[in-house]
């Protein structure tokens, strides 16, 4: 058995590994937190849409040989358009403004997308191998797989872009205005429905990027997306619903918690760290680390 000394020795590696994955978690959570922060809805279709993005990256690679990291250029805009359309002509229309109905519509959407994936893509699990899949970056105390390192920096970069978008552009200002005061925004002439749809679109675009970044170091099947959803919820709550910085920091914390928890408690019980953080943060500080106080 491993003794404590050896565990301690592995700790730095575990922390770094946690940070690597945490960045991708953050990206998944980013979409969720944005949608929650502005539209106040919990998007149950999140996992299904992530899966769809991963399939997009997969087929772009298989049929056209497009590297998944480059595929971001195609998948992100497509995801935005899909998200925008889904909200503008789907979720927004059908939900009649009721929370419970939005929940059901997104749930129904998830069922349709997942099963359409089974129907069209089959339930076969797919993985891709890139020429650099097994290349690593040697930090001395740990090997980091090159795809994960690329994903890590790409995630950070995308978080930065999103932050700039939200805080520096007119669209971002409008989004923040709508998030803060719907009626007020409407009164000053902001097309609130358009902003809602755009926000949903941006949220899904984040998923598009996350799908492309995940594919090289994971697998995709019609249910893969759900694997990341509970984690994403936890991050959203931890970081504070609606907070971009919160999602990033939350992603790192959860990534490290999972990694270190797994090391200490074993990879089965170790998962409990995530739900414990989830419960504790809800009880002790429901606004999250960076959330606006109500």
């Amino acid at each position, binding site marked *: 058995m491993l003794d404590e000394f050896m565990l301690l020795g592995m700790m730095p590696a575990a922390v770094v590994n946690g940070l690597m994955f945490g960045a991708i978690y953050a990206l998944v959570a980013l979409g969720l937190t944005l949608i*929650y922060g502005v539209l*106040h809805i*919990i998007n149950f279709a999140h996992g299904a849409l992530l899966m769809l993005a991963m399939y997009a990256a997969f087929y772009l690679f298989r049929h056209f040989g497009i590297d998944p990291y480059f595929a971001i250029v195609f998948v992100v805009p497509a995801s935005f358009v899909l998200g925008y359309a889904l909200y503008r002509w789907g979720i927004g*229309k*059908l*939900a*009649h403004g*009721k*929370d*419970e*109905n939005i*929940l*059901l*519509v997104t*749930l*129904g*959407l*998830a*069922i*349709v997308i*997942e*099963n*359409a*994936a*089974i*129907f069209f893509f*089959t*339930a076969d699990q797919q993985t891709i191998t890139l020429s650099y899949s097994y290349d690593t970056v040697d930090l001395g105390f740990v090997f980091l797989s090159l795809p994960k390192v690329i994903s890590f920096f790409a995630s950070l970069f995308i978080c930065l872009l999103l932050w700039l978008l939200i805080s520096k552009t007119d669209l971002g200002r409008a989004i923040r205005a709508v998030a803060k005061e719907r009626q007020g925004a409407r009164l000053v002439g902001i097309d609130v429905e358009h902003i809602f749809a755009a926000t949903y679109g941006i949220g899904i675009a984040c998923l598009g990027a996350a799908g492309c970044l995940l594919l090289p170091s994971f697998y995709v099947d*019609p249910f893969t997306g759900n694997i990341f959803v*509970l984690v994403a*919820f*936890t991050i959203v*709550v931890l970081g504070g*619903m609606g907070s971009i910085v919160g999602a990033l920091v939350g992603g790192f914390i959860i990534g490290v918690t999972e990694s270190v928890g797994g090391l200490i408690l074993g990879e*089965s*019980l170790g*998962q*409990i760290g*995530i*739900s*414990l953080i*989830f*419960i504790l943060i*809800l*009880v*002790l500080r*429901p606004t999250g680390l960076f959330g606006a106080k109500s």
Partner: protein
Amino acid sequence: MKSLKSRNGLLCLAGLVLALLIPQIIDNNFYIDVLTLVLFSAFLGQSWNILGGYAGQFSFGGVVFFGTGAYASSILFRSFGIDPWIGIFGAIAAGAAMGAFIGFISFRYGLKGSYFALITLAFAEFFRIIANSVEFTGGGVGIFIDYNPSLTQLQFDNPAGYYYLALLMTVISLLIAWWLERSRFGASLVAIRENEEAAEALGVNAFRCKMYAICIAGAMGGAAGTFYTQKFLYLDPPIAYGIGTSVEMLLVTIVGGLGTIFGPLVGAFVLHSINEVARHYLEAPGLSMIVYGLILIGIVGFLPNGLIGLFRRRQKKMAGGDDA
């Protein structure tokens, strides 16, 4: 108004008589079995409805009570030899205790809305991992229940037995909802749902009412757990605490009609029927569920108040006619 009420009473009675006769009328065990699943879903849905529909406390982890009850009676039987027909009371108690535990933590800290929904989700996940990691639940290996059809085991050698058990449970759940709609407690829950602060100003002890509600929901979920294990004879952490059941609970209720007596029953009936019919006609993998999902979205889109809303609207019109 009076005639409307007595007519509704008659309708319910007729429905009950029909439900009792169904195993005699329908000579088809598949229908009986599907109806049993409908009743089971309706019962679980009603458990969710009391907390989510009446008290307005949406949960994404309703399964946690079901799983706790299922484990309680299974462990009582396996480790202490207590027959399930007694064990079900243990399951009810365990479910209620779980309700009190989660309720105390959540309501004490004033969690509402999405926050409450998410903490229940987190608790379900928490207990799934715990059940996976401790010995007395059988860990990941789970618990097998011996196949032994007899009344004391709550196992039956024909589907009608389970049907009647599920019917009994559903009728009890309907009576609980009926009582809620006519009692001070129920009025308090609804007031809390609509506006907690205003309710408190009018003398409603919101914390206590929510605690009672979550305990009742927990007790019902616990009973459902025993029913499940005695019918399907195996229990493991994903079955006990998986999100699928939580989703089913809220799905049948919202589709049927939130905060209504018959909402969960109507929702369960319609959704199960759609699933069975779609599955029958569409055999290609995935296709039936695509249709199911589309119909679900359609129901929400066209009937924002749930299926019960349809009947409601008609009834309101009739009530108006009576007054005139």
